[in-house]
């Protein structure tokens, strides 16, 4: 025991992991959050306003193209949130930092919301463009599957009373789930032809969308990314506080008894 403690002390990454100490985490996120929120507002609002009101209508799309400024960023964030969740789960499993587990829990909620937003805006966009709210297009299907994965993950969190057991089991599920989620993403390609157009936002292709649409979209993407980061941090802080509250309540009850 003593031995490992000494070795941990010598660990040259200790300065990094110290940020995950709950007290320190609360203090630095408390300081950083207002700045992050300000940056979110500065990117998200101009991005959306620019996109909604100051871009031309795209040929063949009409004004429905404007929903892209919500649809694409939320879809991107739905996937990023899963990645965040897996990384946070790994941090919990490997380093046993409680903040990691709580951040994973927070990211799942945000990811679920973003998936829902992407599906709903996609349905609204799909109606004028493809003549249907829903089709079993591979990307649509993959997002529905992602939605189901998020629900399963959060249901497991909710079902287990002991917080450490819940954190462990959901982390295992997150890792196994990622493998199967990726597998499902490629499986649906075999099963149906797509309605979505090919990638138009990649940096290495000739055929990208025009700059008039591209710039506000990038701004919205950055804004949504920051928004997600802010929401996950707020959510994690709430979870940390809830756990502290529970500890205080337990202590009170112990004293009364």
């Amino acid at each position, binding site marked *: 025991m003593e031995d490992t403690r000494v070795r941990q002390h010598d660990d040259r990454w200790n300065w990094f992991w110290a940020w995950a100490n709950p007290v320190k985490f609360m203090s630095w996120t408390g300081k950083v959050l207002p700045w992050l929120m300000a940056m979110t507002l500065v990117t998200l609002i101009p991005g959306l306003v620019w996109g909604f009101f100051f871009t031309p209508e795209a040929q063949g799309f009409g004004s429905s193209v404007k929903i892209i400024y919500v649809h694409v960023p939320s879809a991107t964030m739905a996937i990023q949130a899963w990645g965040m969740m897996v990384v946070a789960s790994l941090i919990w499993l490997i380093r046993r930092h409680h903040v990691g587990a709580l951040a994973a829990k927070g990211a799942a909620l945000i990811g679920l919301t973003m998936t829902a937003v992407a599906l709903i805006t996609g349905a609204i966009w799909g109606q004028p463009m493809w003549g249907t709210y829903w089709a079993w297009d591979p990307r649509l299907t993959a997002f529905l*599957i992602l939605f*189901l*994965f998020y*629900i*399963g993950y959060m*249901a*497991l969190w909710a*079902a*287990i009373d002991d917080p450490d*057991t819940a954190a*462990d*089991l959901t982390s*295992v*599920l997150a*890792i*196994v*789930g990622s*493998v*199967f*989620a990726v*597998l*499902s993403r490629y*499986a*649906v390609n*075999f*099963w149906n032809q797509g309605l979505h157009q090919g990638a138009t936002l990649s940096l290495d292709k000739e055929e990208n969308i025009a700059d008039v649409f591209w710039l506000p979209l990038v701004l919205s993407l950055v804004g949504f990314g920051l928004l997600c980061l802010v929401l996950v941090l707020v959510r994690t802080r709430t979870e940390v506080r809830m756990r502290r509250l529970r500890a205080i309540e337990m202590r009170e009850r112990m004293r009364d008894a």
Partner: protein
Amino acid sequence: MIALLVRDLRLTFRAGGGFGLGLAFFLIVTVLVPFGVGPQSDLLARIAPGILWVGALLACLLSLDRIFQLDFEDGSLDLLATAPLPLEGVVTMKALAHWVTTGLPLTLAAPLFGGLMSLPQAGYFWVFVTLLIGTPALSMIGTFGAALTVGLKRGGLLLSLLVLPLYIPTLLFGAETARRGIMGMDYAQTLAILAGVSAGSIAILPFAAAAAIRINLR
């Protein structure tokens, strides 16, 4: 390991209710579908492989919570966890026992029930082959789900919620291969991926399931 397998098989056969139940459920699902969609045989023939796959999958799900629950309640799971046999091996044997009592009978029965669904001639072979290759993955994934929920009082519904999304790739490739086989299309690619899903599940998931059990027994 063999002794454990034999013990599990014997328990399942003698306990009653577990073994035949899945098959009966599968039969009922196959009977209900024509009531739901109408008796036109050309329609039934078209959806038959898919319905057989979904039915087999649901029947498989039915007996999952029994894999660890009884052993957990009477304490034998603690004994197994502390036994010299690695927990990964225990989990694999549990999955194998589940497959022998659920997946294998379902596979054997599926062509028989296919008659009810006016399955095309080539379909008997394809449904049988794809289920034979795919059901081990269903059992293994299900065992992982059961390991996650073993400590919970009412884990049954949660178990379905966790396991069904994980079943999606297996179902997709299984039903797709059967469909392609029946229609005489190129099936080698999807068949190979289906086999890969099975093999990969058996190779990786015992570790995840064993880890989940260790957490639950802590």
